[in-house]
C-alpha cells in the first residue's frame, strides 16, 4: 500500500476545510418551510376565518406565479456557481415590453408566435450576460448589476408606459383561472420540468458540478464556458416565460415596474435553502418558499397591516431564515 507516498498532490488540491457529509439538509428546510406555512395559515384562519378560502388560494397563486418562475431561473444560476443574477428586472421587462408592443400592433402576429418571440428574447438576455461573464471573466453579480442598469435605462428610452389590450388572448389566459390561476399552473410546470432536468440529466449534473467546484468540473472535461451559457440561457427561458406572463396579467406597466420582484426572487431562493456559493440547492423547494412568501403577504393584509409593515415582515423572515440556516450549517460542519 504505497498510495500514501504518491497522493500528496491531490491532497494539496483538496486540502482545507472539511465539508460535512450530512451536507444538504433539504429535509429540514422543507419541514421548516411547510411548518411555517401551516402555522401562518392556521393562525390567520383562527383569527380571520375568511382567510381559508378558494379566493385566497387564487390570490396567493397569482402573487407567487411570476416570482416562482423567476426564482427557478435565479436558482439555476446560483446552483451553477454564478452567485446571483441581479439583471432579472431587465430580463423580465425586455420580453414583457416586446410582447405588449406586438400585441398592441394594429395587425398583431399570432399569439403563439408572440409568446415564442418573448421567450426567445429572455434567452437572448441571458446569453448577453453569459457572453460578458465568460469573455471578460468578471463576477456575474457585478456584470448583472451593470447590465440591469444599462438594460432598464435603454428600455426607459423606448417607452414610459406599455399597455396590454385587455381582450387579447394572452390577457384572457393570464388573468384566467382553472381552480388556481393559469399562470400558476405554468409555474408548476416550469418547476416540475426544471427540477428533474437539473437533477437527473447529464447537463444538469454538469451544471451542479460546476457550481460545486470549477477546477473539479474542468478536470472532468466539462466546458465551464458552456455551463455558464447553459445556466444563463436556461434562466433566460424562465425570464422569457415570466415576462410573457407578466404582460399577460398586468394591463399596463412602466420600465421600472419589475424592480420590486428582484427582492422577492432572491428571498425565495434563499428561503429554499439554495446555497449562495453554488453546487447545492433544490428547485422543488422553491414551491414552498414562494408559497410562504406569498401567503405571508396576503395574511398580513387580513391583519390590516400596510405596505410598510409587509416590507418589515418580509425582511425579518429573510434574516431569521438566513441566520437559522447559517447556524445549522455552522453546527453541522463542526
Amino acid at each position, binding site marked *: 500500500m504505497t498510495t500514501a507516498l504518491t497522493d500528496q498532490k491531490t491532497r*494539496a488540491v483538496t486540502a482545507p476545510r472539511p465539508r460535512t457529509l450530512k451536507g444538504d439538509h433539504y429535509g429540514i428546510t422543507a419541514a421548516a418551510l411547510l411548518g411555517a406555512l401551516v402555522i401562518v395559515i392556521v393562525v390567520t384562519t383562527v383569527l380571520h376565518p375568511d382567510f381559508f378560502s378558494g379566493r385566497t388560494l387564487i390570490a396567493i397563486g397569482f402573487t407567487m406565479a411570476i416570482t416562482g418562475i423567476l426564482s427557478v431561473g435565479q436558482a439555476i444560476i446560483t446552483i451553477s456557481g454564478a452567485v446571483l443574477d441581479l439583471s432579472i428586472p431587465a430580463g423580465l421587462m425586455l420580453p414583457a415590453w416586446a410582447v405588449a408592443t406586438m400585441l398592441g400592433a394594429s395587425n398583431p402576429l399570432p399569439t403563439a408566435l408572440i409568446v415564442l418571440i418573448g421567450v426567445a428574447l429572455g434567452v437572448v438576455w441571458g446569453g448577453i450576460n453569459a457572453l460578458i461573464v465568460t469573455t471578460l471573466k468578471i463576477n456575474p453579480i457585478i456584470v448583472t448589476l451593470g447590465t440591469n442598469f444599462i438594460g432598464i435605462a435603454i428600455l426607459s428610452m423606448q417607452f414610459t408606459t406599455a399597455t396590454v389590450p385587455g381582450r387579447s388572448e394572452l390577457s384572457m389566459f393570464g388573468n384566467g383561472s382553472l381552480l388556481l390561476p393559469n399562470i400558476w399552473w405554468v409555474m408548476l410546470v416550469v418547476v416540475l420540468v426544471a427540477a428533474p432536468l437539473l437533477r437527473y440529466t447529464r447537463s444538469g449534473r454538469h451544471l451542479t458540478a460546476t457550481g460545486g467546484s470549477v477546477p473539479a468540473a474542468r478536470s472532468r472535461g466539462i466546458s465551464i464556458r458552456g455551463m455558464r451559457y447553459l445556466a444563463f440561457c436556461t434562466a433566460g427561458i424562465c425570464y422569457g416565460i415570466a415576462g410573457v406572463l407578466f404582460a399577460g396579467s398586468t394591463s399596463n406597466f412602466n420600465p421600472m415596474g419589475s424592480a420590486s420582484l428582484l427582492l422577492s426572487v432572491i428571498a425565495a431562493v434563499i428561503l429554499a435553502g439554495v446555497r449562495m456559493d453554488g453546487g447545492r440547492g433544490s428547485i422543488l423547494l422553491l414551491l414552498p418558499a414562494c408559497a410562504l412568501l406569498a401567503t405571508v403577504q396576503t395574511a398580513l393584509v387580513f391583519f390590516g397591516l400596510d405596505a410598510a409593515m409587509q416590507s418589515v415582515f418580509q425582511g425579518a423572515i429573510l434574516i431569521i431564515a438566513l441566520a437559522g440556516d447559517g447556524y445549522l450549517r455552522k453546527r453541522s460542519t463542526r
Partner: protein
Amino acid sequence: MPHGLDTTSAASPATANGYVLEAAGIRKAFGANVAISNASMNLREAEVMGLVGDNGAGKSTFLKILSGSQPADEGTITIEGKRVELRTPADALAAGIETVYQDLALVDTMDAAQNVFLGRERSAAGLAGLFGFVSDRKMRAEVGELVKDLGVNIPSLRATVRSMSGGQRQSLAIARAVLWGRRIVILDEPTAALGVRETAHVLDLIRRLRDRGISVIVVSHNMQQLREVADRVTVMRLGRTVTTRDIASTSVEDLIGLITGAVIPDETISTP
C-alpha cells in the same frame, strides 16, 4: 488489531530535561470517531523531527493539537518542562510554537512584511504608536534582514503575496515562523506543492532553522526528503504514535513497513 508500543512510558524517565516539547497521551475524538488516541512525541532542542503516517493515521489532528487549532481531549503537553494548555492558535504562539500550515495562512492581498508581522505589528514611534498606529518601515527593515539572513528570495517586500510563486510563498511562511518561533516550528507538508528547485530550497531552510537552535517538526509523505533533512522520525498508525526512530538507522523500506503496519516495532523509542 496491531498494537504499537506505548512510547511514553519508556520515554518519560529520561526526559525530565533536554526535551523542548513533550506531548504525552494525547487523545482527540470527534463525536464517536476517535481521531487519535495516545499520541506522544518528545522533541529535542535543535533537531528536525519527521512525522509520518498513512492517510487517516492522525497526523493532521496531532498537528492541530500542537498548534492550538484544536484542543486535546486528554493528554499533557509540556514545553521546556512547563505544562501548557493549547486551546487557541494564540496560546500556541505564546508558548513559542509557530506553525506553517499547508495552505500557508498568508493573506494574499497583503505584502511580505505585513504578512510576516500580521497580528504582531511593530508600533510606530511616539504618540501614534500609543494610539495603535504601526510602522511599516520598521517591519520592512526587520523582514529585509531576516530574508537576507535566510537566503530567501522575494521579488520585493512591497509586492503582495498574490504575485509570488509557490516557493516564494513557502519561504515567506517559513521565514515568518523563524521570526516568531522561539523554540518550535511545525511544518505541514512544506514541499507538497513545490517543484524540484523550490523543494531543495525549502529543505535547506529547514536545516538552517535547526542550525539556529530551533526544533522543527516536519510532516511529510516523502521519505526521501525526510531522510535528507530529519534527525529522527515519529511514525503514526491508526491514531497512535507507534515508534520514534533515528532516521540514519532506519531504511525507507522499514519506514514504509511501519507506516503500513507490515513491520511491528519491537523496540522502544530511540534513546536520547
